[in-house]
């Protein structure tokens, strides 16, 4: 599962105007502005402001959950005109909406989540973005606590259910623990 937080200043992060996205395996992907963005299946999006949608930077797959935080009601209506499904609207960047959204999107494991972070965008987006980010971090921290592994038995069980990077991490931890 991925969470992409989009802000209107966020996509111009690479020198050639394309945007960089940190994927869950830690590698960076470049998404071309002209051809649109193709996000991995199962992605979830938090868009700070509707501008990103207008500019077609976000080519959200149908049924990918999107949380659009946009205080301007007119902009909200315009975004709805794109015909995208599965959009939740919120008029502020408060934590409650974000937590609820993450929960609905089925984001239960913190290890699966990566957030696009860009220092410049972070600064320019000001308090609006900061609040949203803090809310996501807070939600993730809560998830972390609830999903925390406390014993080797829990680790074994968690590994059986895991996949991808998480599975690799757990399997390696199990081997380290067994002290071959």
């Amino acid at each position, binding site marked *: 599962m991925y969470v992409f937080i989009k802000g209107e200043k966020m996509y111009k992060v690479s020198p050639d105007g394309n945007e960089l996205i940190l994927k869950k*395996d830690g590698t960076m992907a470049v998404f071309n502005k002209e051809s649109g963005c193709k996000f991995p299946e199962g992605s979830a999006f938090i868009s700070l402001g509707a501008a990103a949608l207008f500019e077609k930077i976000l080519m959200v797959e149908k049924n990918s959950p999107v949380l659009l935080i946009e205080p301007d009601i007119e902009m909200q209506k315009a975004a709805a005109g794109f015909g995208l499904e599965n959009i939740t609207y919120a008029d502020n960047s408060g934590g409650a909406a974000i937590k609820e959204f993450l929960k609905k999107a089925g984001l239960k494991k913190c290890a699966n989540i990566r957030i696009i972070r860009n220092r410049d965008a972070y600064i320019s987006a000001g308090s609006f973005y900061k609040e949203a980010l803090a809310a996501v971090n807070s939600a993730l921290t809560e998830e972390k606590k609830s999903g925390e592994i406390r014993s080797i038995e829990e680790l074994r069980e968690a590994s059986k259910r895991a996949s991808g990077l998480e599975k690799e991490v757990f399997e390696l931890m199990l081997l*380290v623990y067994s002290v071959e």
Partner: protein
Amino acid sequence: MEKILFIQPYRYGDILQVMPVIRSVREALPGAEIHFLCDDYFAEVLDENPYIAKKLVFPKMKALADMKYRGNFTAAGREMEDFIINLKKEEYSRVINLNFSKSASLIAGICRGAAKSGRIIGVNGEHKVNGNWSSYMLFFTAARKHNPYNIVDMFYMAAEEGLGLETGSLRREKLFFFAPRPDYETADKFIAANNINAGKVVGIQAGASKRHRMALNEKYHLLVGDFNNAGYDVVFFGGGGEKEAAGAVIEAAGNSARAFNSCGVFNIRQNYAMLSRMKLFITADTLNMHLAAAAATPVLAIFYAEAYPYETGPYAPGMHIAYPRARCAPCHDADNCRDRKCVNDINMDEIFDAGMKIINGEDFGMKNYGGINIYLTGIDSAYRLELQAGMEDAEAIVENIYKELYSGYWEGLFSGNVDAFSTRVEQIWEKYGEELEANPDKDSIIAMLKQKASEYSRLDAMSTEGIEAAELLQKAADKTAEEKALNRLRAADESMKKALKKGEMLGSYYVVECGAAANSPEKIKKVYRNIKRAANGFIFAVAFLMQKIHEHRLENDGEMIIV
């Protein structure tokens, strides 16, 4: 440009023994970017190494401590996650895994590489071994009595295979290590502070990381006395855990003994610097043995029980190994050994005598050391051991012949030409025939050869049984026939496993190869066929040599030999 990852995460000695390979790869592929992966406990071995572009540190000890001692699985998870994310940022053209632990193999499976060699484990447990020499490394330790290769040569051959190079194409380099100047100064300060005779000092390591490689402490004080009497001071080496044992040896040597305890005093680089100051270093099969060899300090390594000179002898020319003549050596179960013949038979007078010969550069001549053989190491196209003293001549000839036969067999098997074995046998006769014919103890040579031949006759019969059982399984028309074939296959399997327990090399080959293809009768049949061909090759070789001796006797004295 080649971007190569070598994986060898654990044990100082093993990592050190890969270093010659890295150096040779850099020489053969000057544009290659070489990365090396090891764990956080051993990573310091790679410091200062100019041949490695990047060191990847697997946070094993940190994660282990977090999980086991702090109960913090979350922290361990983050460490592992960061490690994997960083590892995956690299895209390698080749990944060469030289370690067979599950964790190293899983890392080899996780990382990104166009071509991977060695043992690879997938995240869902799928498992394979890429490369003949990697397979060999995986099973040789089960039957090391017949292993003719040094581990460094095995690393070389596995690397050559992983790099797509011809076997033997990388130049063989001796062990090497690096220590910056301040470390030499630290070593010299220790020597000066203890008023040690810098020009005449012998190093001894009485301990080892494994109990069965450890010497009996009560014998070592005798060496201290002997070397002191010859005008040499003695410095004891080892880790902090060996400090007490070394102290006990020094105490047993008496108040006036000129012996000094450096156990636990130095880090690995300072230790290396200190070893370079020794005139001779006497040790078991330890990391310090390899470090001393890297420093070109003359080594007299006393190999006990599980250690085997061909396998882990110091990969540098001019080093000496004392090896027990006990028939049970090398053994596979040292921890449960009661009589410890390999240790008890070591006579410290003989070790001292051999040590002084090495210091003075004297020839060993025909000296017969009762309980030990003394070997001299060499490197040309591969590691070489030359018998200096101890072993009877006839025994030595048979050993040399068999080492060559075994290497001929494995090389033939891996090149897909086991039948080339007969050519090798003729070469062996060319090489040793004259010596063999001239030997007055031909009868014992023949007896030893016959004993070997009977071992291979058993293997021949076992493999025939295996081939037939696998064929029956392939043809089985119904459940009953299938079960019958499976029973025969299981019986053959048991026989091979028993052969493995006896230390018969082909038994271990079978277990590993068939273990990897348990559900394929075709593959099992192929493995049994290889064993049969190899066994026949050995029988042929022995018969050939015996026939040659027989012909020679008929020619010379008309004596008949019943073969």
